[in-house]
């Protein structure tokens, strides 16, 4: 059974995309749209089949992984690239949760998108996204990864702007794509840097790893270090774009304009973690670049802290989750920055479960409240929607790192690795722990405002509050189970290291190399566990104290934060505006108004000169035909005279 070809995995969503896309286009002309039953079944079936293939392959995967070159892609002088797939420990984990969670969320969407005009279109996009994401994690070279990389960005664009009647959604989608594009250029240039170092073959991950090992064993690290550092930096820019890190993070909160399942799938569980995946995939390269690693750590730390603070101020339930996602991604980057790639991937894994559960729960809440997203108008929903509340509370425990839940194991592991990362380790640890406290505070605020206290919305809307249908609840419950138990794949404190062993063939050597760079004192892991638990409890306590008494300000118009909170929240938007958008606009203005006018003036001047010369010539071109003939007679006379004088005739 293990000899299933790898290309089956991306094939299923691709076929589904084509089928659903055709259905969407064909049925869009009609009044009713396609039958939701068939569309939904198709949309779930194909990702589920992919998941089945992945599961079968994962079960029987050999230690070194499976590699498969499909065909040649680009073959020109100077550059060759193949379409090839690689299924190893890292791709296995990514694929398992991408296809698994993808299937669950697709199922959830059937309920969520019920009755939408673009029902088939939505699932076509979702399947296209799954295809791109699978290609991203399955490919064996950077160029093909880039295909998935831009593909997921494109799907994110399409899905954020899914409800395209509202221009604001489109603007959010444009913003997401353009900001991602900035990162993508970093990715592209990074690839070119690598090509400069080692030819086009080096874009293959195996080749890159062996290349790095070769220069390490040969001791030539110093020679290529500057170029490689630049490469690493460029790839990191790509990752900041995709994973919403400082400075390219402003698109993610805006991306919440899309349907909630999209936020769950793309902007929480899968796509935004592809930056972390890339860092881990290129771990062997990053491990020898200390400067870049430091930058990654600092950026990750700043992002985690800033986003957690911004999360405190949000009133929109999805925005809170968005900032929380950014913050958690910061954790993952911090871990990657200290070369703890396995820990960061582990956090990606657990985060996918609990964040997807949180988003789906939020989606169920929004669904129940008929589109209301402002937390100030919620409250007391635990009675009306008990299942959703349970799911969200479990996920809440997971995200704040409550002992026993998934987030506890992964976050704990990251903090531990941070502490042991070197001389700056304790400082990183303290900030990480502090961020964990804030996380608990804003998540507690979310849970309290949404589910406890009194309902603060209008009376008539209270009538309609209802629990979500079964096809939405089932995925939520499964994800909630994941949020509780996913952590036990690598419970370091109680001695389970299944996850680490699974990743070891991929990132083990890089981490071993990094570990040799600095030796840290061994600390009992139970101390970290205890401190982590303490942080979570402290955060919950603060949240209860501050928000538990239902001192919630009345909702005014916009759900966006105001005043100093807004300054904090939109700080990077301002940075983008003044450092990116306005200069470009000024440049465009100069081009349009100054340069173009100068060129037009030149053109006009030349034209005027020609016209004047022409007018001069037309003075002879008089109105009277007779005079013109007379001129020609005079001309003939002159010619004859010339001939006579020069003696041509005589």
């Amino acid at each position, binding site marked *: 059974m293990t000899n299933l070809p790898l290309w089956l995995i991306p094939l299923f969503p691709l076929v589904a995309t084509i089928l659903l896309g055709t259905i969407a286009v064909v049925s869009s002309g009609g009044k009713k749209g396609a039958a939701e039953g068939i569309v939904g079944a198709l949309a779930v079936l194909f990702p589920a089949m992919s998941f089945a293939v992945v599961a079968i392959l994962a079960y029987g995967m050999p230690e070194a992984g499976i590699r498969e070159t499909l065909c040649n892609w680009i073959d020109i*002088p100077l550059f060759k690239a193949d379409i090839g797939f690689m299924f190893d420990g890292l791709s296995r984990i990514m694929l398992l949760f991408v296809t698994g969670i993808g299937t669950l969320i697709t199922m959830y969407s059937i309920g969520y998108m019920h009755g939408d005009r673009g029902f088939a279109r939505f699932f076509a996009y979702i399947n296209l996204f799954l295809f791109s994401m699978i290609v991203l994690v399955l490919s064996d070279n950077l160029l093909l990864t880039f295909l998935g990389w831009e593909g997921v960005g494109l799907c994110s664009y399409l899905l954020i702007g899914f409800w395209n009647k509202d221009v604001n959604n489109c603007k959010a989608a444009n913003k997401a*794509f353009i900001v991602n594009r900035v990162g993508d250029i970093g990715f592209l240039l990074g690839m070119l840097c690598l090509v400069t170092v080692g030819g086009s073959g080096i874009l293959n991950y195996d080749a890159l790893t062996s290349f790095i090992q070769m220069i390490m064993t040969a001791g030539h690290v110093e020679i290529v270090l500057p170029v490689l550092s630049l490469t690493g930096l460029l790839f990191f820019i790509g990752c900041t774009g995709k994973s919403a890190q400082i400075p390219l993070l402003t698109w993610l909160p805006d991306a919440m304009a899309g349907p909630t399942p999209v936020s769950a799938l793309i902007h929480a569980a899968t796509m935004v973690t592809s930056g972390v995946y890339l860092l881990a995939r290129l771990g062997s390269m990053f491990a020898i670049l200390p400067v870049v690693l430091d930058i990654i750590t600092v950026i990750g730390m700043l992002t985690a802290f800033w986003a957690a603070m911004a999360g405190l101020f949000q009133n929109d339930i999805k925005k809170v989750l968005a900032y929380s996602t950014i913050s958690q991604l910061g954790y993952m980057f911090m871990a990657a920055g200290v070369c703890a790639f396995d820990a960061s991937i582990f956090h990606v894994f657990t985060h996918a479960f609990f964040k997807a559960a949180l988003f789906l729960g939020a989606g169920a809440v929004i669904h129940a409240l008929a589109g209301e997203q402002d937390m100030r108008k919620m409250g007391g929903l635990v009675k009306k929607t008990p299942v959703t509340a349970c799911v969200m509370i479990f996920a809440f425990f997971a995200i704040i790192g409550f002992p026993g839940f998934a987030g506890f194991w992964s976050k704990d592991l990251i903090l531990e690795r941070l502490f042991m990362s070197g001389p700056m380790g304790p400082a990183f640890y303290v900030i990480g722990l502090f961020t964990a406290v804030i996380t608990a505070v804003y998540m507690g605020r979310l849970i309290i405002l949404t589910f406890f206290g009194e309902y603060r919305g209008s009376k008539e809307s209270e009538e309609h509050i209802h629990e979500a249908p079964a096809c939405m609840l089932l995925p939520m419950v499964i994800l909630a189970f994941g949020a509780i138990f996913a952590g036990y794949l690598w419970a370091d404190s109680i001695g389970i290291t299944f996850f680490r062993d699974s990743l070891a063939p991929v990132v083990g050597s890089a981490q071993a190399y990094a570990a040799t760079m600095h030796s840290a004192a061994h600390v009992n892991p139970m101390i970290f566990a205890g401190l982590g638990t303490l942080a979570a409890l402290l955060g919950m306590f603060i949240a209860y104290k501050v928000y538990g008494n239902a001192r919630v300000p009345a909702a005014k118009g916009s759900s966006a934060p105001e005043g100093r909170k807004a300054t904090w929240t939109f700080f990077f938007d301002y940075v983008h505006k003044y450092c990116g958008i306005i200069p470009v606009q000024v440049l465009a203005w100069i081009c349009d108004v100054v340069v173009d006018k100068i060129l037009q003036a030149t053109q006009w001047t030349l034209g005027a000169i020609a016209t004047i010369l022409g007018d001069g010539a037309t003075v002879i071109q008089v109105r009277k035909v007779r005079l013109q003939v007379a001129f020609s007679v005079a001309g003939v006379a002159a010619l004859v005279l010339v001939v006579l004088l020069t003696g041509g005739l005589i």
Partner: protein
Amino acid sequence: MLLHILVLAPFIAAILMVATSKEDPKSSSRLAFIFGLAFVALSVMLIAAGNKATDPIEWFRIPGTKGPVYYYLYSHGLGAWMVFLSTALSLVALVSARVTSCKNYRNFAIGIFALMGAMNGTFLAADAVLFFFFFEAMVIPAAILIAGFGGEKRREAAMTFAIYTLVGSAPMMISLLYLLTIADNSLLLSLAMALQQLPAGTQAAILASFLLAFVVKTPIFPFHGWQAITYSEAPAPLSAILTGAMSKAGVFGFIAWILPIFPLNMGIVSTMMWLGLATAVYGALMALRATDGKKLLAFSSMSHLGIAVAGVFSLSEAMLPAVLVLLVAHGLCAGAQFFLMGIAERMAGTRELDKLGGLAGNSPVFSTLFGALGVMSLAVPGTAGFVGEFTVLLSLWDMGPLAALVMGFTMILSAAYMLRFIQKVIFGKASGSYDNGPRTSGLEGASIGVMAVLLLVFGFHPAFVTDSLHLFDEEAVEQMTDAGKDASAEEAAEADEGDSEELPQAMTPEEIAQLDSSLKANGFSDEERKSLITQVVGAEAALALESRVQAGLDSAAAPTNEEALNKEASND
């Protein structure tokens, strides 16, 4: 034969179209469609047939020049693909115009066929004068079509277009004539050799005049004044042809005429590359501010072609396939976008972006195509645009990181303006009714869909495009040699009557090495150098062989030359 048909048959088709009734657009559109389809099929056959050349036919002699002008066509990968673009876009234009301009459909079809013939001639001509003839001839049907079928300011647009392009190529005509007084004939090789004899200043002047013609046609930054107004005022199907196929004549000229003929020093090369990049950035910035849909597309097209020109003058080894893929991708993509914009204009009655919007809900098939092609023009991986832009980026990276960075900046800007364009046209709320004209017809939608599918296919398997590109592979060199032999055999026969001493001698290895090094100093890449020298040596060797057989000498030296050359090339 294929080449002759592709160049001459469009004109015949145009004449045949005259025979159809003006009052009955249905029958003339059917005839035009059949013709167009046949030409597309022929151009696909041309691509499949690889390198081909016709027998050179002596056409006429320009008084004062040494040799005759040949009617001589040859196709290599680049030209064949450009011919494909010209025929394919013409076909779609004929299909699209059927819905738009019913009244004078016959005349439109006549113009399109004439334009297609001239473009095919431009891309297939092997003789410089023939090339120039077609290069100029393209302008006439295009200008007439603009003046006859364009928008409100069509006369102004047609005048601007004609004056700019004709004035731009006038210096080229003069310097070409001057070159012809020195060269043996107007084929590429003899022009290149003739140029070597001139002083450096004259060479530079001739180069500048040649560059000007192509720079205006492409257009490149300071010479783009005609472009926006022409593309926006021309009927949309024609704009598609203009941008998709005709503007390629400029880039084609850079590759097929400038690079082989002129010894390029680095100053010119880097100037042209930066001009190309400046065009790219400028076009993108202008597109950001454009309020007219067709103008936006015009500037976007200018931006992409700027990138292509920068790629050409990066002169890296990967340049040729990279630029070819980029050109094919841009031709299909920009062409399709113009067709779509034309449909939008037809439905809404306006091109103003602020007055459009909400088409997604109104006509889903149109919007699907529009969105898909818009995204494809962003060079998303998996489309041909990505392969083109990535490989061009690779070429530029060779010239320096700064160039690549500028191009990266352009790519970001392209995302910005294209997404804004998509949003303004198909998203949001409809600000007017869309009942002004007929909606997307089935044939129209299908043909644009085919273009989109082609973009995807080339994106995943660019070898379809790049494999046809063996610019001067052995077969072509052989044919060129044969042609040269024929031509010079005649001359030799003439010369025999007078003085038989003038038979040319084969080049010695020293001479070849000298030529090689001079070419290298002028920035030719290994492959180009090799192919050029193979041509020279091939022609020379064939001649030498003849003379040596007559003289009864040993002819083993000629292969030795080639071996030495190969060795040299591989050493490089």
